[in-house]
């Protein structure tokens, strides 16, 4: 990854916390970092760089500061300088822009890619009845998944089904993309080409190529979901990974109960959870769900919103602080404050997009 890529996540108008950006990219979020991710409109980027570590990230931020592409507004908060803004625009013009960042996460494309490559190799070698080859090395878990997947396949149909699935998908792509993608595949007598061996955009880097692949494999997954029946080998392969949700099962359970009209203390009691945990569940649900799907009215009563509106007068929601509205030690106050922030943010962002 080119360090300039990280400028993508900073703004010249809104100072942003670098640790929030790190938490989102590396998928190490908390309720608080997710809220700030919402404020920065960066949630679609969740988990893009799961292997990135904190020292490396901090070094990049330090380098960007040194190059005067970023400046510090207060400790931990950074904004783009004019030079940084120009560098960000220039970077975006030269490099690949991920088209489906959120789908990439929800469909788990990054986990699907290595499974697909190995399955494709295995099917190809099977077409030649060859058992004497070097398999692409994947993790033990992935290897076991692929092994059981292969065992389940109807071997009479496998090669035809697999090929037809690929043909169907590749036909939906622009010819250039389809050719490039197929050139990367590994199989019998074919070692596949690396990025620098493909005749692609010379301004791109390996990282652009990775993003490009994420988009194409996300499209492949959509194609599988929309066009292939559940018994198709490729659909079964995708089932090993499967789509995921932003919300864990536990959060979903709390949210469903709330939507069905249970009060928070009732949910806590039924689910044997602390009240604070249930409140966190609902805040997470509010952050990730579309505006209309969350029962804001059940909590943000006119009395609550009136009070909060009187005390939170700054037009910039980023400036609101809990101690501006706090009256007691009751944890529900923070829940309402944060929910109000989310409610306001979602309306503001809907308004901006309109």
């Amino acid at each position, binding site marked *: 990854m080119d360090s300039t890529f990280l400028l993508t996540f900073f703004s010249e108008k809104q100072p942003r916390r670098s640790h929030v950006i790190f938490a989102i990219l590396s998928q190490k979020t908390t309720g608080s970092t997710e809220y700030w991710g919402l404020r920065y409109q960066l949630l679609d980027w969740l988990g893009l760089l799961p292997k990135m570590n*904190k*020292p490396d990230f901090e070094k990049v931020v330090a380098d960007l500061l040194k190059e005067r592409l970023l400046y510090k507004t207060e400790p931990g908060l950074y904004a783009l300088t004019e030079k940084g803004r120009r560098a960000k625009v220039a970077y975006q013009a030269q490099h690949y822009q991920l088209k489906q960042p959120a789908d990439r996460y929800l469909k788990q494309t990054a986990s699907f890619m*290595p499974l697909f*490559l190995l399955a*494709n190799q295995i*099917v*190809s070698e099977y*077409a*030649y009845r060859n*058992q*004497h*080859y*070097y*398999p*692409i*090395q*994947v*993790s*033990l*878990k992935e290897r076991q998944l692929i092994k059981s997947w292969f065992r389940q396949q109807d071997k009479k149909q496998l*090669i035809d089904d*697999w*090929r037809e699935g*690929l*043909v169907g998908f*590749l036909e939906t792509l622009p*010819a250039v993309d*389809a*050719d490039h*993608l*197929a*050139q990367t*595949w*590994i*199989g*019998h*007598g*074919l*070692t*596949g*080409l*690396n*990025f*620098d*061996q493909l005749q692609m955009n010379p301004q791109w880097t*390996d990282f652009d190529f990775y993003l490009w692949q994420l988009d194409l494999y996300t499209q492949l997954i959509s194609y599988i979901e929309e066009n292939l029946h559940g018994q198709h080998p490729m659909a079964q392969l995708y089932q090993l990974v499967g789509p995921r949700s932003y919300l864990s099962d536990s959060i979903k359970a709390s949210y469903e109960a709330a939507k069905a009209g249970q009060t928070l203390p009732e949910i806590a009691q039924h689910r044997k959870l602390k009240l604070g945990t249930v409140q966190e569940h609902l805040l997470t649900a509010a952050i990730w769900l579309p505006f209309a799907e969350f029962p804001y009215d059940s909590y943000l009563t006119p009395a609550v919103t009136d009070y909060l509106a009187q005390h939170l007068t700054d037009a910039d929601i980023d400036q609101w602080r809990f101690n501006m509205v706090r009256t007691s030690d009751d944890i529900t106050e923070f829940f309402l404050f944060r929910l109000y922030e989310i409610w306001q943010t979602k309306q503001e962002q809907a308004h901006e997009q309109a």
Partner: protein
Amino acid sequence: MNKHEKMHAVLKEKFGFDDFRPGQAEIISALLENKNALGMLPTGGGKSLIYQMMGYLRPGTVVIVTPLLSLMQDQVSRFNYMGEKSVIALSSLMDAQEKYSVLHHLNNYRFVLISPEMLNQEAVLKAFANININTFVIDEAHTILSWGPDFRPDYLDLPLIHEQLGFPPLLLLTATATKAMQADLMQRFNVPMEQWYVYAQSVDRPNIYLHNEVLDTNADKDDRLTTLVKQIPGAGIVYVSSRKLANTLAEQLKQTTGRHVAAYHGGLDNVARYRLQQQFMQNDLDVIVATSAFGMGIDKDDIRFIIHYHLSQDLASYMQEIGRAGRDNQAALAVLLYVPGDERIQYHLLDASLPTDTMLAQYMDKQIDAASIGVERARLIDYYIAKHLGLEQMQSLFKERRIVRSQALQSMVNYARQPEDLRNYLLQYFDDAPTSLDFESVGPAAFNLNVVGLPAQLAAKNSLPAQHWPDILKQLFK
């Protein structure tokens, strides 16, 4: 069937060979007699076959301690290629659940590859203590001495681990250890001298032609490199000391020589690495420009030339690297290109790899944390703290290491500057007897490919790879 008949039967059945290469049968035989063995076979001498054979000759799990993750994966891949499925690499790439599951079924595996760091974890060691270990193999055993003291301290604990595992049959394998290193290695393990079997072959690779050139400037070196890559037929590796340079030189050579060239370094992802290795093995690629990460696990026996664009860190590494050429025993070529002052890069790398006195003091005083001195370095210092070494002891230990490694590097520099008698210089360094073989030259003017007598190359592949997806699918699935 007696022991030797059985050995030959397994060799034929599992590997398809009729005969052992020098040293293999001797070492296997000693292991079967419950001796511990130190095998020093030249690179390409078939070291891995020894422990692979052991897996089929007696029950239990063969445990192979291996330094690099990439090497481990290559070895697993090779086992798979042979049709062996009962093999696993226990590595940091596994999540906790995978690791747990493997550790609980350890005795189901015929071969387990593992790093010393992983093996040195309490839970891991406990699991290994509970299984029947067929042979405890330390591959590239010289790393105990070269990496243990100042880079990978867990290597130093291997003798203790061997003891904690109940002294399973031990096999140390290396291609490059001087006599003194061999003795040092053996005495570290708590094994009586009479229970050792040592097989040490000369490090010499008589089929590799040695050629050194001292050049005035980097521009001259670039020119020479281009000329040589254009001129020498067959597959080759160019070794450089940085990723960045690997990329630049590969690009440059692609443009100037018209050959198929690619850069290989530790920054590549798994699949990219796989593709390059396979392309190289199938002769789709002619030349790899690599950092030293490349080659340890490469199973290609017809590499015809190795060119060092930079010095190796010492002669042991240099022998390892050039030893990747000519494993088919046909003529091959090792060229060292040197510009006076090249050693500065190696000295710099050496300095950067050792903690300084101030760094040690500040870290132990908690004025700086692990992140600011580097996680690996912190781990090294923590290791010695755990062994109750004080600041001054540590400072003098690293000072000593700096001297030892500088001397080793100086021998490399001296080799690069040798006016003649290259082979005997190398042999003498490894305490081998001198040879009268004259298969070498020094200086650009003395270079004559005809003298090397490289075997004729198969005609390059004429067919271009398929460009369009329908053709690619046809090739993939018939």
